[in-house]
């Protein structure tokens, strides 16, 4: 029995101090229900993905569920750091696969701007292994990825310019995405002259602090037929997941993320993908930092290990290249509201596969796309293959 996505919604990403967490979630849920063209009553179970801590609502699943009118139907609350949204979609998928429910909504939401930047940096830094990392050394999230960047640059000669090219591409795409936090292009010079946040990563190598929500409604194949929604369904053809150690000192190396390699291997096998660049039309990759997108090209098999810098430089991940990556602006420029990010990626790929991406539409040949969502620095790894 296949599981399909029948409706998606996404709020405007950005600094959303105009709404509460509940109101923000409602925006995406309402859009998803209208997109599916079903009644709210058709939904049997809700999954709420939110990483939490930065919002004043410390156990937010039930308040969100209540506000969206799903009291009694769940919620199952999931958390997987920056991959929380993908864990929510996976949980919705599994609930349907197990036969417990036929129509399930995955809601991803995060408000990160309710605390100040030093507090937000501390929450991120504490998300590794607190006692052995943050407590002693004051790690931050940009710092974790910067450590990977230092290793990648030393081993493969990846340059600050190549990192900046990822930011320039993703900002160029976000400029055309009305949901994006930063709807403006940046120049290479601007990116390369911005201040260091965590050497060797500069301000424009980093995703910002974002509020946002996204929702996806999943249903069983039988239910999709019964509801007459076969034409709009996008099928989940492959799912892969993995994880890595909490302590960075226990990793084999710092030039890639093993969780990406393992998750993609699993998803590719399930979806029968052996040449991702040829078989996929579009991909949403986890570019919380520019180095993350470069490592993802390699770890997902879009290019050989160490050639990620060249991949961006050659335009291989741009429109008209080998495989357009982060056509919606990525986490870098659309924004990265942790709980919403993975569901937001699904939203963007569903829009692409339905041919509804407007100015940002890619050419569809295979009608297949990929989402790649990392929690932490490879602490969690998720890959989905979607297709129609």
């Amino acid at each position, binding site marked *: 029995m296949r599981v399909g996505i029948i409706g998606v919604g996404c709020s405007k990403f950005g600094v959303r101090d105009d709404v509460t967490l509940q109101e923000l979630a409602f925006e995406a849920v309402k859009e998803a229900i209208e997109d599916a063209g079903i009644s709210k009553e058709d939904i049997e179970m809700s999954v709420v993905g939110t990483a939490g801590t930065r919002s*004043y609502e410390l156990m937010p699943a039930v308040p969100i569920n209540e506000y969206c009118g799903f009291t009694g139907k769940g919620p199952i609350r999931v958390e997987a750091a920056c991959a929380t949204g993908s864990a929510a979609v996976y949980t919705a998928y599994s609930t349907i696969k197990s036969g417990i429910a036929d129509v399930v909504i995955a809601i991803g939401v995060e408000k990160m701007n309710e605390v100040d930047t030093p507090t937000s940096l501390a929450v991120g830094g504490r998300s590794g292994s607190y006692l052995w990392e943050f407590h002693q050394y004051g790690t931050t999230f940009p710092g974790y990825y910067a450590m990977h960047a230092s290793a990648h*640059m030393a081993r493969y000669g990846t340059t600050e310019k190549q990192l900046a090219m990822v930011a320039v591409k993703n900002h160029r795409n976000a400029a055309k995405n009305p949901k994006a936090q930063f709807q403006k292009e940046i120049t290479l010079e601007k990116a390369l002259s911005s201040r260091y946040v965590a050497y060797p990563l500069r301000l424009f190598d980093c995703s910002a602090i974002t509020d946002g929500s996204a929702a996806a409604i999943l249903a069983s194949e039988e239910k999709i037929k019964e509801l007459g929604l076969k034409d709009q369904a996008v099928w989940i053809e492959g799912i892969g997941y993995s994880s890595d150690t909490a302590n960075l000192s226990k990793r084999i190396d710092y030039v890639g993320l093993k969780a990406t390699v393992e998750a993609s291997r699993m998803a590719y096998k399930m979806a029968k993908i052996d040449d991702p660049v040829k078989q996929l039309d579009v991909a949403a990759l986890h570019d919380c930092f520019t180095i993350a997108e470069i490592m993802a090209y390699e770890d997902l098999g879009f290019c050989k290990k160490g050639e990620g810098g060249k991949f961006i430089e050659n335009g291989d991940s741009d429109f008209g290249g080998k495989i357009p990556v982060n056509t919606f602006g990525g986490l870098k420029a659309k924004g990265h509201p942790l709980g919403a990010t993975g569901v937001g990626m699904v939203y963007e790929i569903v829009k692409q596969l339905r041919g509804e991406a407007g100015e940002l539409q890619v050419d569809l040949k295979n009608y297949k796309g990929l989402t790649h969502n990392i929690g932490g620095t490879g602490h969690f790894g998720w890959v989905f293959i979607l297709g129609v």
Partner: protein
Amino acid sequence: MESRTFILKHKLPIARVEKYWKGLEEGKVYGTVCKICGAKYYPPQVDCSKCYNSEVEWVEISGEGTIECFTQLHSFPQGFEFVGRPYTIAIAKFGDFKVMGWYEGDIPKVGEKVKIKTGKDETGVWKVYFEPWGELNEHRL
């Protein structure tokens, strides 16, 4: 509007790895090795994640280390404002152990050799420091 103030301060149960924290005060950095299967742990732990036994030997990590990756932080998290200047975090390899520490210098190089030291910061927290083995690198920032 602003929420009511909410202070979170946790107690850290370190009873089972007390030797590590005592060691730092004596200038020693300890890892653990499982007596049954030989698995090595840094940070140290007294339960073996591999073979599920809980008999470990404490071994000192010393000698020449090699930096595998690093960063220098310019945006500080809450709790580290006291440093007041960019600080450099590195992971260095000492034989079979990899260790995180604060690098005492400006910007290290991947592959650079370092000595391991211990010390405490202005807030009284003990930690590992890496001292450049040779001459300091040129000041880049």
